[in-house]
């Protein structure tokens, strides 16, 4: 059982007032709030540890390097990667995906196929489109049904020996669907395709085990799991990370440089050109520690309670339709009321102190599928409460009344 009051006290921002109303933060899908330990760790880094890493002979640089590498180890343990050097620090999920997509430019040939799912965020569509334009490979889409679940029989049929990489999110940001990635990874491997899992929306709710999943790449962002912005992770199996060329050139990623030839550094540095987000990397370890202390089993079961409660309460509103009704779903509720524009409802409940996301959630193909301009999305975290959901539902009712 979670002690919600104690947890809420960890997050200074949650006691804020917005337009003289207590903040209700239901935009966790966009970014999570930060606990005091994370905020303190950022300060501590700049007050006591700041130095450039991996190159200084001096004590401070050594200490900062150690802290950075300790954090890498924490992330390795957290996702159960085999080796620490399979964990690459990036600036976030988008950066991670681009690094892989860019690397595949040297592997793909005309006529090869890349499979993306219909449920993807633009960040997991556009880099692959760019890759296909560059290489002459073909982008194919794994379709979904009305519930927002991927149609696995179609997926099976799309797979062939032309498929070189399958890229799919673990959990959909717009609809909350938890995808059957174990099955999808297994099937992709049967035809020799690599698999990238976009874990940006999954890592706030669960602890991925990359070895059990057997995925080739798993990517996520720090800021969605109570960590700082501007840091993220690219996990890749060693063999893949060795095979892919580096994404960016610069300092840190080299072994030797001359004007005739540069040799690249070993993993993980090959993919970490330039001075990284040192503070972000170190503090991401703190954030992961914090979440593990609360416990992902506790987080998942509590968030499921919030999801069920929120779904039930919202559906009591006449004319409300929920988009994304998959059997396996995370604590995300995307909805519209009659033909009221989501922006109108979002704007009015904002005035009541409630933060939700409205719009297409960077997933326009999903909105096109449902023929809607967007949705209102409430995404719950482990620090949210049923009382907040009650206030939110009342606010939505009020907005509906004003707008009809």
């Amino acid at each position, binding site marked *: 059982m979670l002690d919600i009051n104690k947890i809420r006290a960890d997050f200074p921002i949650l006691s804020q007032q917005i*337009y003289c109303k207590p903040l209700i933060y239901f935009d966790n899908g966009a970014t999570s709030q930060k606990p005091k330990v994370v905020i303190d760790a950022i300060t501590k880094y700049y007050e006591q540890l700041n130095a450039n890493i991996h190159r200084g002979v001096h004590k401070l640089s050594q200490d900062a390097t150690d802290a950075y590498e300790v954090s890498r180890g924490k992330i390795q343990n957290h996702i159960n990667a085999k080796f620490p050097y399979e964990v690459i620090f990036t600036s976030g999920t988008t950066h991670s995906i681009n690094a892989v997509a860019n690397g595949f430019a040297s592997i793909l040939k005309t006529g090869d196929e890349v499979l993306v799912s219909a449920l993807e965020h633009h960040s997991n569509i556009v880099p692959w489109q760019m890759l296909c334009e560059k290489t002459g490979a073909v982008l194919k889409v794994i379709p979904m049904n009305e519930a927002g679940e991927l149609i696995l029989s179609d997926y099976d049929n799309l797979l062939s020996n032309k498929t070189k990489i399958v890229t799919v999110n673990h959990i959909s940001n717009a609809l909350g669907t938890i995808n059957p990635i174990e099955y999808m990874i297994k099937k992709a491997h049967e035809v020799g395709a690599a698999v990238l899992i976009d874990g940006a929306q999954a890592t706030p709710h669960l602890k991925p085990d990359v070895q059990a999943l057997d995925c080739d790449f798993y990517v996520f962002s720090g800021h969605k799991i109570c960590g700082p912005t501007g840091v993220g992770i690219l996990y890749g199996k060693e063999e893949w990370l060795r095979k892919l060329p580096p994404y960016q050139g610069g300092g840190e990623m080299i072994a030797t440089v001359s004007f005739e030839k540069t040799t690249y550094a070993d993993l993980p540095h090959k993919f970490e050109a330039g001075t990284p987000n040192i503070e972000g990397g170190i503090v991401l370890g703190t954030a992961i520690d914090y979440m593990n202390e609360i416990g992902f089993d506790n987080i998942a079961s509590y968030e499921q309670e919030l999801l069920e409660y929120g779904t039930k309460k919202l559906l009591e509103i006449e004319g409300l339709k929920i988009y994304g009704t998959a059997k396996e779903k995370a604590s995300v509720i995307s909805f519209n009321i009659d033909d*009221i*524009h989501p*922006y*109108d409802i*979002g*704007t*009015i409940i904002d*005035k009541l102190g409630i933060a939700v996301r*409205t*719009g*297409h959630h960077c997933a326009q193909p999903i909105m096109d599928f449902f023929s809607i*301009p*967007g949705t209102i999305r409430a995404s719950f975290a482990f620090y949210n409460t049923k009382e907040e959901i009650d206030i939110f539902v009342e606010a939505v009712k009020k907005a509906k009344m*004003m*707008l009809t």
Partner: protein
Amino acid sequence: MTIQEIQDTIVDEFSMFDDWMQRYEYIIDLGKALPLIDEQYKTEDNIIKGCQSKVWVHAEQNEDKIVFTADSDAILTKGIIAILIRAFSNQKAADILEANTDFIDEIGLKEHLSPTRANGLVSMIKQIKMYALAYNAKN
């Protein structure tokens, strides 16, 4: 009336409202009131795509003045469009170019014209000014 006089009248009207809810209800009523644009002008060419809501703007010349019509798929955006159209439509290009939108701040709707709002309104004002600039150059 000049643009300034119209804007002053709008500020006067809004000063009657005590709180944001009354202001919003009024804007919603304005938004619902009328189709603000002829359906034939709701074309891809006239559309301004915001991430949040869409806006259509159409301009026509009426002697030495420019007549704007516009619409949005979101009612609050449409209501604010009604206010902007009232202030800027049927005015001379030079006057439109000179006018500012500070009155939006005075009536408590400043945040709707924030560039980060992505509701199409900022682009709409830009578009209005661009039309005025183009007419001004032409004549």
